[in-house]
């Protein structure tokens, strides 16, 4: 009786989680970030001649809707017109972005975890169906692996920032009077390292390092 009740509860939870994940529609919130809003905001910045803010908002919109062709096209357009390299990304990022957004992939990972646990539990109870349940276990592990890889691929974005000011210099030290190492292009994406007072230590794609005024850059993912 205990085994049957557990199976029923797990089946109910699994079906609910799968329906939620498949719909991709999280609960509606009154305010916050949305891909259309960020996209429109970025378009407005493009028309206003501010490529840095435009790239920042396109990147944020891409985080919520990575498989949106319009966001990708406009981001490429702004980067090209600003003299920046076109967007690339790893093979896994491209494939995962075709599949679903990171937030949706998170729910797929939860579903995978649920499948793994339930199938292992049931295999113990029903040894005669062990083969089919082991296949379910493998599928659950596959979902969890995709989610985990996506999380690892996204992790560097947590420290990425966009140059939002024109003629931003990277300096040798975190003071305004320090010598300029190199000019940074507006819209260029940097990796943030450390922060000292009003300056942030950043790394460029080419591997160069310098201190930038924190007001001249904006993180792609604002921390909570």
């Amino acid at each position, binding site marked *: 009786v205990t085994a049957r009740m*557990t199976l029923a509860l797990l089946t109910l939870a699994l079906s609910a989680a799968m329906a939620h994940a498949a719909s991709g*529609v*999280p609960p*509606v*919130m*009154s*305010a*916050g*970030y*949305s*891909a*259309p*809003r960020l*996209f*429109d905001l970025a*378009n407005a910045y*493009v*028309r206003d001649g501010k490529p840095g803010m435009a790239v920042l908002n396109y990147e*944020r919109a891409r*985080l*919520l809707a990575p498989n*949106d*062709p*319009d966001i990708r*096209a*406009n981001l490429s*357009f702004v980067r090209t017109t600003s003299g920046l390299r076109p967007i690339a990304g790893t093979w896994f990022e491209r494939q995962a972005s075709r599949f679903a957004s*990171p*937030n949706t992939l*998170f*729910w797929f*990972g*939860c579903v995978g*975890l*649920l499948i*793994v*646990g339930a199938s*292992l*539990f049931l295999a*113990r109870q029903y040894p005669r169906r062990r083969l089919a349940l082991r296949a379910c276990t493998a599928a659950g592990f596959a979902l969890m692996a995709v*989610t985990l890889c*996506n*999380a690892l691929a*996204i*992790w560097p974005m*947590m420290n990425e920032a966009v140059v939002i000011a024109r003629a931003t210099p990277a300096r040798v030290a975190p003071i305004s009077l320090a010598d300029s190492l190199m000019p940074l292009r507006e819209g260029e994406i940097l990796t943030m390292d450390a922060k000292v007072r009003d300056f942030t230590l950043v790394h460029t794609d080419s591997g160069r390092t310098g201190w930038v005024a924190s007001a001249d850059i904006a993180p*792609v*993912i*604002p*921390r*909570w």
Partner: protein
Amino acid sequence: MKPLPPRRLHPPLGAIAALLLLTAGVAHAESGVTEQIEPAEIDLGETAQLTIATLDSTQTPVIPPVIPGLEFVAVGQSSQMESINGRTTSKSSVVYEVIPQRAGTFTIPGGSPPLVLRVRSGGASAPPASAGAFSTSPAARSGMVASATQLTQDGSAFVRLRLPKHQLYVGESMPVDIQVGVRDGLVATLSGLPSFGGDSFTLNNLSTKPEQAPEIIGGQPFTVLTWHSALAAVKPGTSSLTIDTPLTVRMQTMRPSAANPSGDPTLDEFFNDPFFQRFFGVVGTTEKEITLASPPTTINVMALPAQSRPEGFSGAVGHFKITSELSAATTTVGDPLTLRMHVSGAGNFDRVRSSMLVTAHDWKTYPPTAIFTATDSTGYHGEKVFKQIAIAKEPGNQTLPALGFSYFDPDSGRYETAQTPPISVAVIRAAASSSAANGRVPNDDEGKASAGRFVTPALRPDYADTGYSVASLVPRYFQPSFLAVPSAMALAFAAAWFWLRRREQAADDNSTARQRATSQATATWLAQMETAAARGDAQDFFSSARSALRQTLAARSHVAPQSIGLEDIDAHIGPDDQEVRQLFARADEATYSGCNAVIGDLEHWKQVVLRQLNERPAQ
């Protein structure tokens, strides 16, 4: 009198001049010179046209006389040759624009009888294109009224301002021409653009490259530079406007010997001859910075009336008309349309503003954008186009409300509100389509494409907000509240797994204990069976043997050993195990009848019991 410098005549002016020649009202038959002025009566601020024609080109060209209060500006020249029966005649004519500088009756000598021009007063504020005024020059066509030409003390240069009128309203713009004239032969360069002091007016869109034209003033040829601009009144009151223009003048200077006359006219004429002075190097040059100022022009600026000022008046003053258009007459719910409002005319377009549709039932609208296209160099004439995105919310025959625009008409002196007619749109219900296609806002190119042209947009259009949003951009992998979900699931599965393992372990422990007890009991009964066999006690032997078999059979069937008797032994043994049944029967017989068996018989049953125990372990 000096000859007139050659002038190029435009074909239309040449034709007019030829026509005037044919219909000349005043002719000098003796000299072959005819003069005509049209019209003979004008208002102050208008211009007339004087045509002087000579029938023989070999004659000395005639120039207009110098008349105080009148200014003659050459606007064209033409010549015509005819050969009839071997006799060749030539005609040439020069057309002058006569600009009066005051009212009165002027007599232009040279003709027989002399020409008379009557200038009525009060023409300065008259409408610029009044009937009867013969206007051919650009300034005259635009209704410009020139301020008096006031030459410098040496008569070498002047600055003047051309205005269409002298009364303005606050905020109103009007096109103005700023003219700087330099007498031919004077070498001068501009050191800066014309400007004026004071804070009552602003000068907008001053052309950087002035137009250049010749002009005769006081019998002297001048080169006139003309800048076009728009003058805007900033505050009410009567102000005097003076235009300043910096110039660098290069002048020739003579050495003292050449400058001082010798007293002998013959020698003075010889030494003052330019060829002599240049040949012997007695002429030098020097540069001088001067600032030319125009005579003050009085302009009366009136405040806009506060009464009956319409709501939404943005300060536009001028003459405007508006039209509107929609990018499509039929649309789908959720599909955006582009609504355009065209405001065209003349006035201060920088103050032409509109919010278009702010609230419209069943329509979602976005803030409009505006683009101004000037049709002249000063930005006084042109068209401003407002564009607004509108999205229908409900299907059916919808109507976009009329658009209004309020402005102040300086001619009538009152506020006007122009309105466009409402626009009807057929809105059909949206079919199932991709979410990306719904609610997208077209850019300019898409708006044109909907009109039938294919345009590839550089920037893809805006989306309509779907209402879905997230509180944080941080991926859920890294949000503690969301990480609790998989963590709780993992903990639940681990707990369940541990509980299951514990349960199985406990079951294993019970089974082992039972098996051990069964084995011990069986061994005890076997030992007692051995003892009974050695004693020859058949009753005790069969009882012990039955008890040993009962232990094993009970452990296998999970029942109590005492519950297994002869009557239900068949349920615990196979069909081939009749020896067990016989043993249970002999045991009952020995118990209840006390039979005795021989030693050899007991040894046989002992082997049967041992074999059965070996074949049927307890578990």
